[in-house]
């Protein structure tokens, strides 16, 4: 049988960066094909070429055995290709319905097809058990729901070849499972699916075949049934990955952070956080588990000074945190000066300035510490500091003058973590540290966090990845609906119980 998609010698470079070099492989019709590789290996680039978003410098693409010129996304869509991008391609202030209709309006007047489209969407939602309200506005939806909208779009367009670029990065285990249900149905219908993910377990769970990329080239192509996570990992990073990182025995010190009775209401009076209270000690990692959107982000914002609580207090190092102000302007600096470092969960929004160089980004938040006479920077010294840091944290490429926006997500994250670790904080707030990050880098980041813990830093970790929680945490708090619904030590780690708590089942 003809393969549904075949890449032949695809090459693509951006300036000096060779994103794809002579990439060739084929995907059978009706298969779920995994694509794995480190950050920056060129996966997204390759898929963008298939989707007509970029044009390759060389090589050709065959669909059903026929060479096709795919110069624009329109052409790709016409050829039955659909893509769910790594960053959602949704118009925030429009409804789900409008987002689905965009590009497939069916006529000049929207009204003509609106009702029919809405009906069809509801049918699709029912059939595939997708929980999406077609009339909801995108910006009001959780990440998971936005992900479902992207899927919905593709089902509606009845794409035959579906590309999913890291669709599970922001999903909970349950959400991932229901996505996979849908993908299996697609497969039954004879559709071809390309799945990019950094979670090798997912590859093992759902794909039929896998292609591994490294540094723009294909380094391996195997049938899933004939490989293992370890082998894949080895192919990806060129060395085995340690699954269980060694850690020093749990030996917490004195309390660093004591949170009492925190409340947060939004402008319309809806409670976002209620009765939050816990204690965090030096030298321990406390993880907050929970489905995203249950108040974890808000809690981190409050603890890092980016936002004020409506009421409640928190003591840091025995002193109350200064929440008695009328706005949070400038507060993060105060907190940072106290010794609170923060790796924000949305790194592109909060953590970096995309058009600044890597070096300039290592200054972010610490500009007032690094300034010298007359408030001027000594860039020689800062560059040296940056260079060292890039080496220590294995940021690739280790070029301080590169715009950080040009780094892969994983490497951006390493820069942010490096910056915060370097500040030698007493308390480290870490939000989703490995979202979208490859396994090699995850390992590196985890090592850094554990080292920090062992050095006596208190770490508060927010993560939706239970694997990550298990790998790092000493204690686990579970949040649901803005409350802490339960707490358990790591040796009582129990996925089912955590799942129940995440769903709001109270401490029994």
């Amino acid at each position, binding site marked *: 049988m003809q393969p549904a998609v075949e890449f032949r010698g695809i090459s693509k470079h951006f300036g000096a960066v060779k994103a794809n070099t002579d990439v060739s492989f084929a995907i059978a019709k009706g298969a779920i094909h995994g694509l794995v590789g480190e950050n920056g290996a060129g996966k997204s680039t390759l898929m963008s070429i298939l989707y007509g978003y970029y044009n390759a410098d060389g090589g050709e693409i065959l669909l059903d055995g026929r060479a096709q010129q795919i110069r624009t996304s329109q052409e790709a869509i016409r050829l039955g290709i659909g893509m769910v991008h790594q960053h959602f391609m949704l118009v925030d202030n*429009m409804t789900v319905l409008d987002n689905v209709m*965009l*590009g497939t*309006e069916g006529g000049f007047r*929207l009204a003509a097809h609106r009702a029919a489209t809405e009906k069809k969407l509801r049918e699709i939602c029912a059939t595939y058990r997708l929980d999406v309200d077609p009339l909801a506005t995108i910006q009001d939806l959780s990440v998971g729901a936005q992900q479902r909208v992207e899927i919905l779009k593709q089902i509606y367009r009845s794409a035959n070849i579906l590309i999913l670029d890291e669709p599970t990065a922001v999903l909970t285990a349950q959400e991932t499972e229901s996505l996979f249900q849908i993908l299996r149905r697609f497969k039954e219908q004879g559709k071809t699916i390309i799945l990019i993910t950094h979670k090798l377990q997912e590859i093992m769970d759902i794909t039929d075949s896998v292609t591994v990329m490294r540094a723009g080239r294909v380094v391996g192509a195997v049938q899933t049934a004939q490989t293992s996570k370890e082998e894949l990992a080895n192919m990806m990073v060129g060395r085995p990955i340690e699954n269980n990182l060694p850690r020093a025995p749990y030996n917490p010190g004195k309390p660093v952070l004591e949170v009492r009775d925190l409340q947060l209401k939004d402008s319309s009076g809806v409670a976002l956080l209620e009765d939050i209270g816990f204690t965090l000690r030096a030298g321990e990692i406390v993880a907050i588990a929970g489905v995203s959107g249950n108040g974890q982000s808000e809690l981190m914002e409050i603890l890092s000074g980016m936002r004020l609580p409506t009421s409640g207090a928190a003591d840091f190092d025995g002193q109350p945190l200064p929440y008695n102000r009328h706005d949070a302007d400038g507060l993060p600096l105060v907190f940072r000066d106290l010794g609170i470092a923060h790796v924000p969960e949305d790194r592109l929004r909060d953590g970096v300035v995309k058009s600044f160089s890597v070096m300039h980004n290592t200054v972010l938040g610490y500009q007032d510490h690094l300034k010298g006479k007359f408030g001027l920077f000594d860039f020689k010294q800062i560059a040296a500091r940056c260079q060292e840091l890039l080496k220590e944290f294995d940021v690739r490429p280790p070029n301080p003058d590169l715009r950080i926006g040009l780094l892969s997500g994983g490497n951006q994250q390493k820069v942010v973590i490096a910056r915060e670790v370097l500040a030698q904080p007493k308390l480290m707030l870490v939000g989703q540290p490995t979202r979208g990050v490859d396994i090699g880098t995850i390992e590196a980041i985890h090592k850094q966090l554990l080292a920090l813990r062992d050095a006596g830093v208190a770490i508060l970790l927010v993560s939706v990845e239970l694997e990550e929680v298990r790998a790092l945490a000493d204690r686990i708090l579970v949040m649901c609906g803005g409350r802490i619904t339960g707490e358990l030590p790591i040796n009582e780690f129990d996925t089912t119980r955590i799942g129940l708590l995440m769903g709001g089942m109270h401490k029994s």
Partner: protein
Amino acid sequence: MTFEDLHLGSIVVSTVRNAPVLIFAAMAGLFAERSGVIDIGLEGKILASAFVSAAVAFTTQNPWYGILAGMAVSIALATLQGYVAVTQKGNQLVAGIAINIAMSGLTFVVAQYFFQQGGRTPDLGTARLPYVTLPGSAAVADVPVLGWIWTQLLGGHSILVYAAFALVPLVHWLLYHTRFGLRLRACGENPHAADAAGVSVERTRYTSMLIAGMLCSFSGAYLAIVQSGFFLRDMSAGMGYLALTAMVFGNWRPFYTFLGCLMFGFFTAVQIQLEGVDLPVVGRIPGALIQMVPYVVTVIALAGLMAKSVAPKAIGVPFVKSR
């Protein structure tokens, strides 16, 4: 003169008459900006189309030819802006400012070259647009209130005035109820999403600029052919910037923008009437200070009443498929 001399009726009618210049331009700006292209060049397009409309209307003695010619020029300028914004991926603010400055000079030079009247065109005489007399005007003219409403408020305007007011619901419809509007808004909010959905961002933005150019030309034509009857150098006198203000004021939404235009028209009319009038409490306000009434009111309204204005997210950013 006393406070009672404030003629409300006259103010209302004057509001209606003053608003079209702003409405056309603001709606033009709306198309450009909702599609993601900043249009600070409204002023230059108004001026250019005012000149060309007047010059051609005078030469051909036909106002409609004037309007068409003005439209062609304004569309050409808008396309140039589109070329800078879309194809060249250049700075849209710079392009707009450049057009404003260039047109201020060029209209004078060309007018002077052709007509030798100091950058003025000759009087259009009869080559202007007629005023619409509503049927039955004669009959109701003397009926109190109704007569005024029928002959002064509703009737007795140039056809362009009706066009301006009709434009607002039309723009609303186009923007919110058609395929084109959906694509346009998407391009202004998140062009990457539009592109991924198979919409050509370039095509949509060019089309929007085309429409912006066309609408803006009416503003110029109204100024030259309807309100003045000739072209005079720099006669746009800041209207383009005011239209922009009305649009921001109206949060880039047609109806609120329209209200913004009316507000300017209204307060300009009030300001005219207020000059030299003894007001209660404050007494007679000096003329120079009265001139600032519309602007002060705008600032107060912006500061006090309006929620934060939210511009289309992708505005001013060239669409580049890259990180």
